[in-house]
């Protein structure tokens, strides 16, 4: 019998707390080979010069044209992409940003924008609101102006990023403030927290993995937080929250998880496209799967042998990590592991340092408390 519209025609759930819905969507995307999430880098140009930035070719030459971007968006809509993240470089510096973004909205994509926030004037904020973005993520690289401006190598960028965030919050946009933790800023977590509250941002996220530049150079490694600094973060959580600041012991992996689960989402139902049309399994894995000036998206997404190999990876294939008791707590990034060791399957020395700095501290406290 045919189902009618009335029989449970529509069900809904909040996106922000829709873990189960998103899980279902992701599972469906994976089962049907749908690239649900795509990050599209509009340009490698930027108006600032972050010391840690993984983008290495500046000024870029021969980036995609407006028509090429539109053609790619047509193909992504056809392939089933719903969540589109516009990034860069600095996407807002692209002279045709609003044309590309408006075209994406016409095509039904849910938009997220990654930006350093410094170019968001009241007028830009108004135009962004018209695009109804799902969220805007703004990078804040210090709790003090001097730190942020020093990392971005641009005086005034701290104030401008915060102004950008405020202008969007005032207009009802979901703003997430984002910090890449580094040696220079990790001790300013408290100030960053206060700024997030003062600005009224809807959420905050900090990331500990600092990846190498795309040209393979490794000097950004010197910017990573030290094990002592990471340990101090754990200690502060403990001092602030007492026992509640100590997470329960990490759950060991089950045999089923080892066998069935992919260690990360790269290439499963998401990918990244750079401003030259190269398709990558994610922004951090430097293996290009193909180029959209030469092949169609569907041919790359469905036909790349490299991608098939990446999709087939299960936790059990990672010799060190599958045996590691910290796996469920670890923010290992396969792309960084490859940069560091040459293998997508290896443990990531940087992830090991972070995971151990936290867990060793918490483990000591657990023992003390027993």
């Amino acid at each position, binding site marked *: 019998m*045919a*189902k*009618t*519209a*009335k*029989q*449970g*025609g*529509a*069900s*809904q*759930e*909040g*996106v*922000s707390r*829709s873990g189960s*819905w*998103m899980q279902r*969507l992701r599972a*469906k*995307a994976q089962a*049907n080979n*749908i690239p*649900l999430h795509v990050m599209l880098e509009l340009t490698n140009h930027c108006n600032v010069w972050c010391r840690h930035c993984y983008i290495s070719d500046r000024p870029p030459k021969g980036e995609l044209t407006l028509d090429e971007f539109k053609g790619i968006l047509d193909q992504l*809509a056809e392939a*089933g*992409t*719903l969540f589109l993240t516009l990034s860069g470089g600095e996407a807002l510096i692209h002279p045709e940003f609003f044309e590309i973004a408006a075209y994406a*909205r016409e095509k*039904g*994509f*849910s*938009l997220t924008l990654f930006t350093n926030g410094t170019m968001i004037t009241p007028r830009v904020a108004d135009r962004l609101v018209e695009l*109804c*973005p*799902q969220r805007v993520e703004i990078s804040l690289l210090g709790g003090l102006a001097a730190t942020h401006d020093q990392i971005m190598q641009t005086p005034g960028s701290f104030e401008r990023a915060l102004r950008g965030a405020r202008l969007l919050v005032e207009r009802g946009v*979901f703003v997430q403030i984002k910090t890449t933790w580094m040696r220079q800023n990790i001790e300013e977590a408290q100030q960053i927290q206060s700024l997030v509250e003062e600005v009224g941002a809807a959420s905050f996220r900090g990331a500990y993995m600092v990846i190498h530049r795309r040209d393979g150079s490794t000097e950004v490694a010197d910017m990573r937080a030290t094990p002592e600094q990471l340990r101090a973060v754990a200690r502060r959580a403990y001092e602030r929250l007492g026992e509640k600041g100590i997470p329960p012991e990490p759950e060991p992996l089950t045999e089923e998880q080892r066998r069935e689960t992919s260690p990360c989402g790269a290439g499963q139902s998401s990918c990244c496209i750079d401003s030259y049309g190269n398709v990558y399994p994610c922004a951090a894995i430097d293996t290009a799967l193909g180029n959209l000036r030469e092949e169609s998206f569907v041919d790359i997404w469905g036909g790349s042998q490299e991608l098939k190999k990446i999709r087939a990876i299960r936790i059990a294939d990672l010799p060190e990590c599958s045996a590691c008791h910290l796996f469920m707590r670890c923010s290992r990034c396969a792309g960084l592991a490859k940069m560091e060791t040459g293998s997508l399957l290896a443990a990531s020395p940087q992830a090991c340092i972070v995971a151990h700095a936290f867990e060793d501290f918490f483990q000591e406290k657990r023992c003390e408390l027993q």
Partner: protein
Amino acid sequence: MILLDQVVSRNEKTASRILAGEAVVLTPMDSKIHGFNETGSRIWELLADRPTLSEIVAHIHREFEVSQEQAQSDVIAFIEELVARGMVTLGQRSREG
């Protein structure tokens, strides 16, 4: 009250895709994600062309082998739900177009 000659348009603020036959619709106004069943998904798909309610009813009647009456009451109930959730707007077809 909903009239059958009214045109139904998707709210421009929504984002949506038909994924393996099922419409997934995001409403940024309230940060919600909505999923529709087979018929609901087909109706959402039809809305891309800004049809009138009677045009939607005709499609559902034909494609899902339900009676005209059943199709009409189901479509109206569904569109009323979408209006209530702010996912669509109702209007008149302009004479020119």
